[in-house]
């Protein structure tokens, strides 16, 4: 596995303003975790940034993952493309310990990646980022005609849906018939 560390390698420890109780106590060094996507490139992310993802946060708190363990075994997200994971990690780092503003200007601008980004964010359960992404997707059709919406969101017509359903039923029927024939052949 290639271990090109990216992300918060230069990230500062948690700001004292976000955790006032830590001001009195001796400063605890921030822990870092490691994640990788489909491209196996490992991203180093601080625990504070990972708080945004309910999935990863749950994995850390439920599995009791230590920093050392995490370094040896980065969280694998094989279903997320490397560049998409990079975007998500960047966003988490930018919003680490900060309240998320109602209008986010740090969102990735490439709309072509929006579909994959929504999938990734939904999987990682990053609520705020999902809200922003969904808003962007929703705004793509605002003021558009039904035909335009159909085109942008690839919505099949009712007739197309029916035809696809019939086709699927036919295929399922054929497969079932094939299976019963094979079972009968085995019995003989």
């Amino acid at each position, binding site marked *: 596995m290639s271990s090109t560390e990216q992300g918060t390698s230069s990230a500062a420890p948690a700001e004292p303003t976000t955790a006032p109780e830590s001001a009195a106590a001796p400063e605890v060094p921030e822990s870092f975790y490691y994640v990788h996507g489909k491209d196996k490139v490992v991203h180093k992310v601080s625990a504070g940034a990972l708080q945004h993802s309910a999935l990863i946060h749950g994995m850390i708190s439920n599995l009791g993952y230590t920093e050392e363990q995490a370094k040896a075994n980065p969280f694998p997200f094989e279903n997320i493309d490397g560049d998409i994971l990079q975007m998500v990690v960047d966003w988490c780092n930018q919003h680490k310990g900060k309240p998320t503003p109602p209008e986010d200007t740090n969102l990735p601008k490439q709309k072509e990646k929006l579909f994959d980004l*929504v*999938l990734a964010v939904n999987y990682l359960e990053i609520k705020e980022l999902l809200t922003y992404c*969904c808003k962007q*997707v929703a705004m*793509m059709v605002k003021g558009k005609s039904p035909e335009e919406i159909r085109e*942008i969101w690839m919505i099949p017509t009712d007739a197309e*849906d029916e035809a696809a359903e019939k086709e699927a039923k036919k295929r399922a029927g054929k497969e079932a018939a094939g299976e019963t024939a094979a079972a009968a052949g085995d019995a003989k």
Partner: protein
Amino acid sequence: MTDLREELRKCLETYMICMFLEILTMDIYKLLKKLFETPPKVIIPIFELPWLARKHIISKLPIEEIIHFSFISEECKDLVRDLNLKPDKISIKIGSSDATSSIEYYEDKLLMLRFGTRYKRFQFQKSLIPSSILFDTDEQLAERIDRSDMSLRDWIIHFMDILKCENLEVSFSPLSSLINFEYTRKTFEGLAVDTLKIDNCSYEYYKLAIQEFQVICFYACSTS
């Protein structure tokens, strides 16, 4: 010798000019391509997204756009139903200020649809099909939806379906008598009206309304 040199110089010159022109045309071509090229259309196959993400996207649209979306296909209608918008009630006013009918969607009064007001004359008496629908929030939306094939009854049923709301409130006003009662009767036939409000109607109209609507709640204000 000088001739040959001269010839070579001329050839070189021509070659240079050709090269220059080629570079120039290439640049112009690139520039024009950049100027007139339309950016690639971004396509998001919404029904390939997980259910929660899909629901999230639709919920980010304003209510009028959600209604618009519900007309695109049965699958879209199902998705709107999944939003569980469930308003307290759907209020239908028969005969409002300019003798039209309206549907009001109650959830902070986000949406009001008026039927038959576009041409400032009443359109319902002859037919159950409204010739125009006006969304108070966005007039252009009515043009985009273009469902002149739907009657007021169809609209009410569509609203009850997609908003998962069974609470209908029907209000009559002094201007209701301008609307043929037969039309009103046909519009609400078989629909469970939850609340009936009668405000300042003639006694005959009041009687008709009471006979026709079997309701749970009934409010009457000074009938003449």
